[in-house]
């Protein structure tokens, strides 16, 4: 896996640069950029989390926005009832995410390939419409969060607090994933993607392994939602809409599937590009769209060692089959 060699360099450099941003923003007196990059890092966190299932296990979850939503509403609803203690909120957030992930995951993982894509979408859509209908919590109009999560010695009160919290979490996650990839669990997880039938034949439970990966991913995504809620001081169903799930995937693919730092770069590129283009023209999508398409066309051959993983037919679901077995090259 050639990534590991340059990973050593990329990771520290990346995070040092990110650490510099708030100070730069201070110097040029543009506090807005802290807010902006806080958002970027939060999405990066979510993308990295999604990458655990998508990049390693090849489970394309099209419903991860659901966990962002769970995180947001954990904060939103609790503070709605005046509970702004961060620890309680965080605990609830994680607990809820675990429960939901286990339930949803154990249904979704019965399917595979496109089936999985769609069923995850289905669940997040259901949750979306649930929140839309829950008028006590603002329904379509969303829920204002009047006091931010308070961890006692430290409160997610402003953009920069959120920024640093996210930065730290992201760093930890990146280091962790870096190890996970080659750890027994990680290897088996990736193996399940190449040929689940074979992994089963060794007596590993593909289901259990995929489920734990899904739960792990869900929880971390939930935490991203937790941070997002504090950043925007707001929880709203549109955080759960399928577009966000789609954008997370886009970020991952831009950055390079399965690469640990890929999603981070992906998130940065995607959101910065969006921001720049928006400032440039109201028809920014006219430019953004083709750029994304071109990235896809260019990226398709880039990660050769990954394509080896991805172009394997998944024994279970015929639909997701990428290259039919045994085709003459």
């Amino acid at each position, binding site marked *: 896996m050639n990534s590991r060699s340059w990973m050593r360099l990329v990771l520290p450099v990346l995070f040092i640069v990110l650490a510099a941003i708030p100070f730069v923003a201070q110097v040029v007196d543009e506090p807005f950029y802290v807010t902006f990059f806080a958002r970027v890092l939060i999405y990066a966190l979510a993308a990295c989390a999604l990458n655990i299932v*998508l990049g390693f296990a090849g489970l*394309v979850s099209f419903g991860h926005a659901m966990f962002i939503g769970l995180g947001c509403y954990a904060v939103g609803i609790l503070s709605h009832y005046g509970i702004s203690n961060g620890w309680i909120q965080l605990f609830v957030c994680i607990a809820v995410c675990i429960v939901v992930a286990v339930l949803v995951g154990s*249904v979704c993982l*019965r*399917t*595979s390939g*496109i*089936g999985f*894509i*769609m*069923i995850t*979408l*289905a*669940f997040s*859509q*259901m949750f979306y*419409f*649930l929140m*839309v*209908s*829950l*008028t006590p919590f603002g*329904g379509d109009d969303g829920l204002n969060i009047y006091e931010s999560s308070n961890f006692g010695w430290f409160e997610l009160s402003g953009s920069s607090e959120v920024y640093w919290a996210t930065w730290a979490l992201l760093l930890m996650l990146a280091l962790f994933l870096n190890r996970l990839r080659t750890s027994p669990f990680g290897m088996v997880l990736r193996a399940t993607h190449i040929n689940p039938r074979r992994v089963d034949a060794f007596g590993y439970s593909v289901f259990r392994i995929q489920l734990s990966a899904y739960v792990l991913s869900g929880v971390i995504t939930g935490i991203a939602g937790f941070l997002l809620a504090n950043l925007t001081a707001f929880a709203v169903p549109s955080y759960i809409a*399928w577009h966000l799930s*789609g954008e997370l*995937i*886009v970020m*991952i*693919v*831009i950055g390079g*599937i399965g690469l640990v730092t890929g999603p981070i770069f992906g998130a940065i590129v995607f959101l910065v590009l969006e921001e720049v283009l928006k400032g440039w023209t109201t*028809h*920014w*999508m*006219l430019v*953004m*769209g*083709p*750029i*994304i*398409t*071109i*990235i*896809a*066309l260019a*990226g*398709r051959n880039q990660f050769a060692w990954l*394509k080896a993983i*991805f*172009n394997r037919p998944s024994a279970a*679901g*015929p*639909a*997701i*089959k*990428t*290259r*039919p077995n045994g*085709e*003459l090259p």
Partner: protein
Amino acid sequence: MNSSLFLSQLLNGLQLGVLLFLLSSGLTLIFGIMNFINLAHGSLYMVGAFVGAASYNASGSFLFSLFAAVAAAAIVGLVIEHLVARPLYRHDHLYQVLATFGLMMFFNELAIFIWGNRPYFVTIPEVISGSVEILGAPYPVYRLLIIVVGVLVAFGAWYLIQKTRFGMLVRAGTTHASMVSVLGANVDLLKKSLFMLGAGLAGLAGTLAGPILSVQSGMGDPVLILALVVIVVGGIGSIRGALLAAILIAVIDTLGRAYLPGILALVMAPAAANTVGSALASMLIYLLMAFVLAFKPQGLMVSAKR
């Protein structure tokens, strides 16, 4: 509950189902058979709608507008196939999703660029604009027309894929393109024509929807999701499945919207019933999908593929 109302609700469902089917059949062909996820399919639907509307308002001939729309969509489809799809056939779905996601953005914005984001409207020609009584339920002629068209297309598409040589070659080419060509069939041509067919159907759906829905940028996105739901529930690559699922989903959705609040009102306060009802109604199809997939992961009609 009153039966003629129920009937017209059924018809509403059927008509929506047919529109969904027209869209999904193209998607399921391209997806199931060529194994290419085309998120831009919704955009083709939009192209059809816009071109149809524009050409109708210009020419005043409904048939011509139909033709123009289908042709336009097919041509756009061809371009997409050549520039984006073909290079990605053999690659992972993620790249396809990404590429076509970009196309989707592009087309939505392009529509705004050309037609502005004031919704764009078509009227229906007088002859088919009226409404007829069906068992005491007044029902718009135009919507009936849509139903008929849908049924015809359904049969045609199924026949083409399952019964003709073309269909066989296409099915073969999906998994073993190079082998098919070695045996003397021009696979590129096959795939192009199939892609155009799918695009054309999407365009057709678009024009037919035009007079009912407003023609506007982004009109393709929600229907795209619905269409994806349909083909997954129906079983990817199966025309029959798509038809079944489209109608099932549409009818359930329509009846849900129509009756759930009422039914719930029997057990809870009307206000609550209203909100919960409409929420549940909008969740219904996804519940259905989750249910189907959980018990039949391959969808209702497992296509020939396995």
